[in-house]
């Protein structure tokens, strides 16, 4: 009986879980192997036998070196980081203010505004990129980091507002009322009492917003023209493929290095990220 149960657990639990892990992680493994495989080993056709198909016998950092030396990859990393941090900061401040107003203050039209912000949350970037490119150009922001620092908040503010609104509602009103009795203004109570109490929520919103900015593609593709202004995703797509030739070693090195910063941020704040993620879909 015990043996049968154990056998059953392997078949119905460990095996499917292992398949999920394989399916989820193999592309990353393949990315890493390709990034360190020498070209001579890389371009072997699918029929040829291969002494070490799933790993490499002569790992090399050649692709990483050429990526950093012959392309502006380091600049793209810096751009992406800067844009993600600034747009996250802008969105957090706006989201904290708006979230507090919608959660705690009574004013005419608050319900309508809440719904309106929720709807903007669901507007995809691909619906607006053509007119937005013209707006960015007429504001003389085209090809500058500000083009993205100001447009990324359009999809981050609704999310931050929505998440933080829910969070603020869970903080007991009494906390704020105590501070007000002690003579604090409403604004003062918000900044000194509510915001510190909401730090876990703010961190969740921030981490999630950061990963969304790092991921964004179409605005960066349309608004940034010169190589030294690009973000990592756009730089990899447009600068690493020369004359329709794919340099796969370099491409995979770029994909790997471009994923590391965001993966690190995620690894340090997994729990916050997860609560941001699950909070992002709560009504």
């Amino acid at each position, binding site marked *: 009986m015990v043996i049968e149960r154990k056998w059953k657990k392997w078949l119905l*639990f460990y095996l499917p879980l292992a398949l999920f892990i394989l399916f989820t992680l193999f592309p990353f493994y393949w990315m890493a192997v390709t990034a360190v495989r020498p070209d001579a080993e890389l371009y072997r056709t699918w029929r040829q036998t291969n002494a070490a198909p799933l790993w490499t016998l002569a790992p090399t950092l050649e692709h990483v070196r050429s990526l950093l030396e012959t392309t502006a990859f380091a600049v793209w990393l810096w751009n992406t980081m800067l844009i993600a941090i600034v747009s996250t900061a802008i969105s957090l401040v706006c989201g904290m203010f*708006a979230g507090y107003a919608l959660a705690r203050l009574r004013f005419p039209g608050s319900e309508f505004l809440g719904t309106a912000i929720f709807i903007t949350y*669901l507007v995809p970037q691909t619906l607006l990129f053509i007119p937005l490119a013209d707006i960015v150009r007429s504001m003389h922001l085209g090809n500058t980091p500000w083009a993205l620092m100001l447009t990324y908040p359009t999809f981050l503010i609704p999310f931050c507002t929505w998440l933080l609104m829910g969070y603020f509602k869970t903080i007991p009103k009494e906390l704020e009322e105590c501070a007000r009795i002690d003579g604090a203004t409403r604004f003062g109570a918000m900044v000194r009492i509510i915001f510190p109490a909401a730090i876990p929520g703010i961190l969740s919103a921030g981490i999630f917003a950061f990963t969304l900015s790092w*991921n964004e593609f179409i605005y960066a593709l349309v608004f940034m023209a010169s190589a030294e202004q690009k973000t990592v995703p756009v730089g990899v797509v447009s600068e690493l493929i020369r004359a329709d030739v794919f340099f796969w070693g370099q491409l995979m090195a770029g994909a790997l290095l471009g*994923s590391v910063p965001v993966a690190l941020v995620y*690894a340090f704040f997994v729990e916050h990220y997860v609560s941001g*993620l699950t909070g992002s879909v709560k009504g």
Partner: protein
Amino acid sequence: MGGGRTAEGLHLRAERARANRLRRLLDSEKALAAALLAPGLAILVLLIAYPFVMALWYSLTSIRVGDAGTFVGLANFSKAIDDSIFQTAFRNTLFYTFWATLFKLLLGMYLALLLNRHFRFKRIVRASMLLPFIVPTVLSAFAWRWMFDPTFSVMNWALYHAGMITDRLPFLSSGDWAMWCAVAVNTWRGTPFFAITLLAGLQTISPDLHEAAALDGANAWHRFWHVTWPLLLPVTLVVVVFSVIQTFSDFQLIYVLTGGGPANSTHLIATYAYQIGVNSGLLGEGAALSLFMFPVLFAVVWLQLRFLRRTEVT
């Protein structure tokens, strides 16, 4: 002397009055709400509402890069409806959204049920499962493109050497295959989102309910179908709505994986709108193509709002 004192006193009183006014203003709910909402709303109105109106206007004109164009009525829309590439793109978008969402829901639910059990290294497994969702889609799509490469595909290699195929599979070189590949990659990327949000929902279900059902003689499937599923339905619907919107408006995955090819057979609405609006510079036609997404998105959002209101009432 006395005069100086009164002047000083007046000054002080004025100062105090100003402070009081400021204090009242900071305390007034309406004024404070307006001030707090202003920065966020300014960005949303200027960079979402205004471009949306502009998109509507563009779609009714023949505007192109460097030429303001003239009002053409619904010509851009009727041109799109007659365009066979757009018809394919529209069908592809529905196909892609339907199958990818279905697979993500089924696999995500299965993964959530697996992750809801206790096992060693659970935290690290759960954390690594989210990686496809964290890593920029463009970068991971390149890894998939490399794995689907016509000449160097690791999958063709593995299947051939396992004796399962004699000729290579045309992953991205045939339109039909390429659409299924895109569905597979989207499923790979989106399943963690479903799994983790559904897992959060699962964790709120009391184990007592399962025990009670088990005592009544319900097997695992019955317990899932009659206990877990109904309780998970609200969060499932919300996740599906989000996923449908994301998938329906997707751009980056197809842009990297196939670029709409071979022979324009794998375009989505968004990638085709980009090709027309940006690559060809036909802003009016591109804006009209993008707007074809709107009715479907609107319907989904409407359902979502209706649903939200209903859960608030009950």
